[in-house]
């Protein structure tokens, strides 16, 4: 899958969904899946391409969500502007956490755990400070006008999040093809070697983290506008940290389409599990977890890995083994 053509094709295809189906159930499902795909692409830039696994992407998601909401509700700023400020705030948080962590030389599991800790700190703070409404949460006033970034119909929301996912895909492709991307992958594969070659590893990781945070923050801001209610657990809770890493890993880590594929698959899996188990509480999630294990067991490179494998088999090319991504 090279070039921008597949991206444009995919986005164009997905864009037609509201025109084909008038079902809000489908649209709602897809909006949520695309939102996760967006957050996941953010994670993917840092974790997939950069090799730095974060367990605390909720920190950026929540910042995007809260800033968007608070700026509107407390300071009367326009919703769109608030959204942009939210993204900037998320990026800033990413830069700060990144600076602190990378300058201390944290890698691997230590990095993962420190991001987790930061997200938790933010969650706790958000649950007690008055500005976020503390425990009560923040409610965005229902105001179904485009100027307020709210819409009567689900379709505009859908196209907006699709557009953002499209941008994230293009961004990923651009990075793949750029020198920056090459540095990033070099750092992932062998940081010491990369440094020996003159790559400023800390700076590269920091830039990746900032962009990563911005994307996930955008997902957060969008969530706030879509559901109109957030609290500390929703904004900064582990659920989004997990979803943001699950999607790219399942879909194909370090690939452009990985997060999108992964998000769609994971969400669909959840729905299918519910379908199969009827109303019994918990059973659908048992199946969901079981399938997850099976996918990992039999398709460790993710969905994209399956495609690549098939591709190779169909064209009977012999290729060198994939570098160990562990």
């Amino acid at each position: 899958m090279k070039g921008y053509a597949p991206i444009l094709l995919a986005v164009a295809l997905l864009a037609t969904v509201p025109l084909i189906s008038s079902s809000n159930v489908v649209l709602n499902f897809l909006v949520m899946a695309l939102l996760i795909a967006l957050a996941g692409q953010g994670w993917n830039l840092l974790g997939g391409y950069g090799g730095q696994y974060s367990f605390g992407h909720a920190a950026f998601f929540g910042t995007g969500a809260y800033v968007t909401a608070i700026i509107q509700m407390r300071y009367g700023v326009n919703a769109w502007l608030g959204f942009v400020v939210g993204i900037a705030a998320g990026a800033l948080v990413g830069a700060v956490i990144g600076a602190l962590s990378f300058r201390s030389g944290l890698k691997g599991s230590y990095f993962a755990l420190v991001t987790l800790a930061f997200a938790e700190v933010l969650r706790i703070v958000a649950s007690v400070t008055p500005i976020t409404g503390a425990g009560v949460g923040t409610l965005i006033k229902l105001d179904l006008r485009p100027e307020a970034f709210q819409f009567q119909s689900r379709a505009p929301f859908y196209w907006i999040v699709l557009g953002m996912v499209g941008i994230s895909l293009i961004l990923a492709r651009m990075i793949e093809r750029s020198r920056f991307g090459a540095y990033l992958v070099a750092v992932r594969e062998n940081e010491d070697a990369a440094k020996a070659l003159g790559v400023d590893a800390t700076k590269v990781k920091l830039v990746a983290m900032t962009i990563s945070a911005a994307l996930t923050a955008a997902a957060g801001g969008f969530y706030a506008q879509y559901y109109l209610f957030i609290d500390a657990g929703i904004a900064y809770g582990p659920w989004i940290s997990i979803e943001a890493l699950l999607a790219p890993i399942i879909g194909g880590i370090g690939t452009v389409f990985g997060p999108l594929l992964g998000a769609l698959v994971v969400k669909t899996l959840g729905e299918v599990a519910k379908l199969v188990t009827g109303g019994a509480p918990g059973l659908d999630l048992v199946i969901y977890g079981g399938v997850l294990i099976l996918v990992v067991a039999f398709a460790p490179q993710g969905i994209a890995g399956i495609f690549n494998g098939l591709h190779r088999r169909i064209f009977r090319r012999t290729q060198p083994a994939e570098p160990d991504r562990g």
Partner: protein
Amino acid sequence: MLVSVAAPEGEPMSRQSLSVNRRRFLQSTALGAAAAAGVLQAPSVLRAQGAAVKVGILHPVSGALSYSGQQGRIGATLAIEEINASGGIKALRGAKLEAVLGDAQSTPEGGNAEVEKMNGAGVAAIVGGYASGICLAASQTAARYDLPYIVDVGVVDSIVSRGLKNTFRFGPGFGVIAKTAIDNLVTINDQANKTAKTVMIVHEDSAFGAGLAKLLNTQLPERGFQVLETIPHPTPTRDFNNVVLKIKAQNPDLVIPANYYNEYVLLARTMQQQKVRPKGIYSVLGGAASSYKFVKEFPEAAQFIMDCNHWFDPKNAKALELKKKIEAKGEFYTYEVYMNYSCVLLLADALERAASADRDKIIAALESSTFTGHVMPYGPTKFVNGQNQGAAPVNTQVVGNDIQVIFPAAFASAKPVFPMPPA
């Protein structure tokens, strides 16, 4: 990746029979309901003779709130069974109610997704939500489709102050609960020669606890109480020893807890262990303070605890009958059960009066409702801006093995024991 999934029982799309199979099909998923939505028009279509009226029953039956969600579901489905058994909705030629069950998975997105599915399945109305966050999101989504939404429990005031025509709350909100709690506390205290002056509040730190604590903090001093300290804690909290230490050190006359079941149990047990015995424990919306489960499992720790909470009308025959039914099933008679039960009965009454399953007519019927067939001590319903005016909490106290109502006098079955006798 979006592959359409066949209906589980292999029901072909064209045969829209009204059997149980269709219910399972419809209550299942996005994909199934999506396909169905393409076929079904507005819900008022296909009103064949006695055609079933679908009612969305939404609760968090999995996730952190699963116990409450499951209790709520039990109450709601029991009500539907009873209504169907006694002839369904007579104004609609005996149409039966058909439950479309939804699991909100203890998150607002989960609730939201279920509302979409229920709408796609053509429900006439939705009952439930339980948690404030879920109710807020779900009722808002329902508002897009003018789908009537009856909130079962969710207490935050913002639920009914958004100007949403479709949202109705049968039970009381924070504002009323806090005011009633304080009014009744003052009365109980006066009756005991104003023996309590100092107070400590222990509350959980999310919407419910924090909101309540804020109100209490403003209103208690105005009524002559001194709040020594307000202690928030997260849900879950693993250990209350420090909290109890602080209570012990400051020795308030009254402890006011506002938290969920698990934390309340830990708090009460820790207080018992540390031999902390204030003059009274006056819980507001306590998770366990008026729970039969708590009384059964921890009789000593539960003694004389007062609560200001949702409670059924102890003088109502239907309420007591329901209690027997629930206990016969081996379940506890908790507020989620009878509040959901009442909400479904309320909806059925609205359907009767509207003589239609049309959403707008149901909303109109609810707006003008004066329903008395519920089991709560509220009097006839009267909705203003979606809030039932007569809704109010009631004061209870654990005495012996039972929970008695001590206030208001009209529903009381015992006198308050205050201050608590020494251990």
